[in-house]
């Protein structure tokens, strides 16, 4: 698996390398797709944290940090430099002095401070509040006990200080579009939700709700010479089959592929030349509720892991559009332990463990799942006969995505099948296994382990990067051994792109989210002019 992953990464880097080797061409339109079903929420990105909305936001907005897809880590975006204090809690940011909002006004420290205060408005439900809450005094603003966040201090127009409550890397907290920087006060205007003003490479030109969003080049964008294309048109196309026809008809430049299309595209001599494959930071799992008696026993949970031939399902059903999961953290994470092997397919061992746990004849459980082809009912249906071989009977309870999200948080399930974010910050991803993390947050399987708590607490309080990673690796391995989940696979995201589209980035956090200023189209594009 790792060998395959390395080859894939090499291919991805090679694609990037080729793009950089050519001289980017100015002009034309990038015809991109937003493939995740629904229309955009609205054009106030602070109100939505869905991947679908982040796609357009990357054209129009910018946050304090950005995700560097090649390096696989957050990097400064709106600041030129940052200095951390000795205790690792206070950060001084020096903002860039060439960033202009789409209304022509220059970015200042006031805008950053205003935006973060705005996100903590206790009367509104801004998803980005979960990140800002890490700043000292942010909770007071949320509760209405203070007017401004005490941990944010303006030093001058281009400098501000941020004091945190925990020793965390702020880069992992302030890079998503949901913390995009707005010009002070502008979003209070009603028109803002339909005419957003950002700092990004493109400014809004047209929005047809449910169909497309078009943005045109912002000439005062700070990255000299970028963006390359004159326009970006983002088509809302939730239907994979419609996307397939449009892509083959050269009406769109990129398309996210599902397992069935992946096979078709891979076997096509022409289409296979334009595939970008990335190991995304999501782990597909079956969560087991310890309040359902059999799953309280570690041996039963491990037995489930031994009883399922995950490799076979990945090969036959997921059509190799996934990498076998060997723990909770994905292979790109610094906390990932390469020496750990996946649970082998061993039904005999599963039977033995079940017998030891007091279930020699197995048991029956209800399995909550959505219809998703990669991590839903089709997978459960393939697993059920394997479980039956060791005596476990599973009954599928089909639900919608929003219902799954609710029942899992409330613990109203026996087992669930889902794809969960396990990146990019290993500390945040593993915090889900701290006994103090509630089920409503992300401790969905009510995980409780004293050793894990201790290691996580130490990782959160140390300034020693090596020790932090060591602790996180240990936690990841304990979680894998305790098996609160059946570890199925890490998503392999695949994007088909036309030969004329260059500069795509292998974004492991979500392949459909791209920095459009890095992309360009050559003269062979139908929309080159």
């Amino acid at each position, binding site marked *: 698996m790792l060998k395959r992953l390395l080859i894939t990464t090499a291919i991805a880097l090679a694609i990037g390398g080729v793009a950089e080797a050519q001289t980017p061409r100015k002009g034309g339109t990038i015809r991109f797709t937003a493939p995740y079903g629904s229309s955009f*929420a609205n054009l106030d990105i602070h109100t939505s944290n869905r991947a679908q909305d982040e796609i357009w936001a990357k054209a129009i907005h910018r946050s304090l940090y950005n995700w560097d897809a090649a390096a696989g880590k957050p990097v400064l975006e709106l600041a030129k430099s940052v200095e951390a204090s000795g205790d690792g809690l206070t950060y001084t940011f020096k903002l860039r002095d060439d960033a202009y909002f789409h209304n022509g006004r220059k970015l200042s420290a006031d805008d950053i401070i205003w935006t973060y205060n705005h996100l903590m408005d206790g009367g509104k439900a801004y998803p980005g509040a*979960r990140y800002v809450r890490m700043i000292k005094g942010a909770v007071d603003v949320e509760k209405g006990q203070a007017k401004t966040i005490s941990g944010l201090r303006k030093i001058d127009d281009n400098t501000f200080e941020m004091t945190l409550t925990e020793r965390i890397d702020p880069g992992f907290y302030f890079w998503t579009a949901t913390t995009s920087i707005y010009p002070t006060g502008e979003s209070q205007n009603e028109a803002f939700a339909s005419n957003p003003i950002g700092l990004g490479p493109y400014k809004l030109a047209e929005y047809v709700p449910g169909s*497309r969003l078009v943005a045109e080049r912002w000439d005062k964008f700070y990255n000299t010479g970028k963006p390359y294309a004159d326009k970006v048109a983002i088509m809302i196309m939730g239907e994979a089959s419609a996307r397939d026809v449009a892509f083959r008809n050269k*009406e769109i430049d990129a398309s996210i592929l599902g397992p069935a299309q992946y096979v078709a595209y891979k076997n096509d001599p022409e289409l296979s030349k334009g595939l970008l494959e990335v190991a995304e930071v999501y782990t597909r799992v079956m969560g087991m509720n310890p309040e359902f008696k059999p799953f309280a026993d570690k041996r039963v949970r491990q037995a489930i892991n031994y009883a399922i031939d995950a490799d076979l399902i990945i090969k036959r059903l997921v059509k190799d559009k996934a990498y076998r999961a060997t723990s909770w953290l994905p292979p790109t994470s610094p906390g990932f332990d390469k020496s750990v092997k996946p649970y082998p397919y061993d039904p005999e061992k599963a039977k033995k463990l079940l017998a030891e746990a007091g279930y020699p004849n197995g048991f029956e459980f209800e399995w909550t799942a959505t219809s998703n082809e990669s*991590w839903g009912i089709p997978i459960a249906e393939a697993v059920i006969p394997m479980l039956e071989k060791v005596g476990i009977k599973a009954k599928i309870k089909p639900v919608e995505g*929003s219902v799954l999200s609710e029942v899992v948080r409330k613990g109203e399930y026996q087992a669930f099948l889902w794809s969960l974010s396990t990146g990019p910050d290993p500390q945040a991803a593993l915090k889900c296994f701290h006994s103090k993390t509630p089920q409503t*947050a992300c401790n969905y399987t009510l995980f409780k382990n004293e050793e894990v708590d201790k290691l996580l607490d130490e990782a959160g309080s140390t300034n020693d990067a090596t020790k932090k990673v060591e602790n996180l690796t240990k936690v990841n391995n304990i979680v894998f051994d305790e098996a609160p989940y059946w570890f199925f696979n890490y998503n392999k995201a695949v994007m088909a792109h036309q030969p004329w589209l260059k500069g795509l980035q292998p974004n492991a956090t979500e392949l459909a989210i791209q920095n459009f200023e890095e992309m360009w189209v050559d003269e062979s594009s139908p929309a080159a002019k």
Partner: protein
Amino acid sequence: MAAFLLRRLLQTVPILLAVALIIFILFSVIPGTFASSMSDDGRSVIDVQVMERMNKEFGFNDPVYVRFGKYVAQLVQLDLGTSFRTRQPVTKVLAERMWPTLMLTFASMLFSIVVGVPLGFIAALRPGSWVDTVSMVGAVSGLSLPKFWLGLLMMYLFALVLGWLPSFGYGDGSLRYLVLPSIALGVAPMALLARTTRAAVLEIMNADFVRTARAKGMSERKVVQWHLTRNALVIVLTTIGLQFGTVIGQAVVIEKLFSWPGLGSLLVDSVTLRDIPVVQGAILLIVLSFLVINTLVDVLCALIDPRIKYT
């Protein structure tokens, strides 16, 4: 006629209220909220405080009857509430998506009428002929084809193979973009209209007054013009009215497939994301359109056939 119109108008109110109540109860019973839908992809984590604030902001902390009372009080003032998703008034959200759906509906009904009615007429005038057989086999096929599959097939054929039309999207709202979705949506009503027209004409052809007209020496052209057409039109018009409502409802699949920015795709998104005010508003609007169109059809029928009296 005025009394009839007034009565129909008054009938609309309890129907709309009943529909509003049903939708309200359904969405109160089924699990999932707007807040939970925000993290349905497993990627987008929302923390507890934000979820609680969302539920508070959207009034989920009140009991169902209180929420319904507030909703009815709003409805009385013709206020459909605020969309959870866009934070805009539902009326504004619906208005944005109404025009594309109207365009699509009218275009598909136009296609179904222009093709379906003459086809049914011709088939009825030559019963048992090859025209009759071919058109009726076509009509049955048209009725049984799943819209999604038909739409996809048309995309493939007319966009990819022949390259005549764009495969998806709204474009600049021009007719080029309208052709494929409206035909994909119009095939089923076209088939139904062809069958209904054929049946209606055949039935009238055997009626006593037609036989009498022929016996009195009226020319076949005049029989068709004065007796068949006029009488069949009442039945055909009623079918058209009913189909209008059905087409608006069925636009959901086609709009999603073709990335058409209408009410149908809005409705699907809003159901998925539990944007309840928009779901309620969109369904009420669809029901209202259905009622208005059918009232109009009744009026038209009365104008065409003086025997129809409305009191």
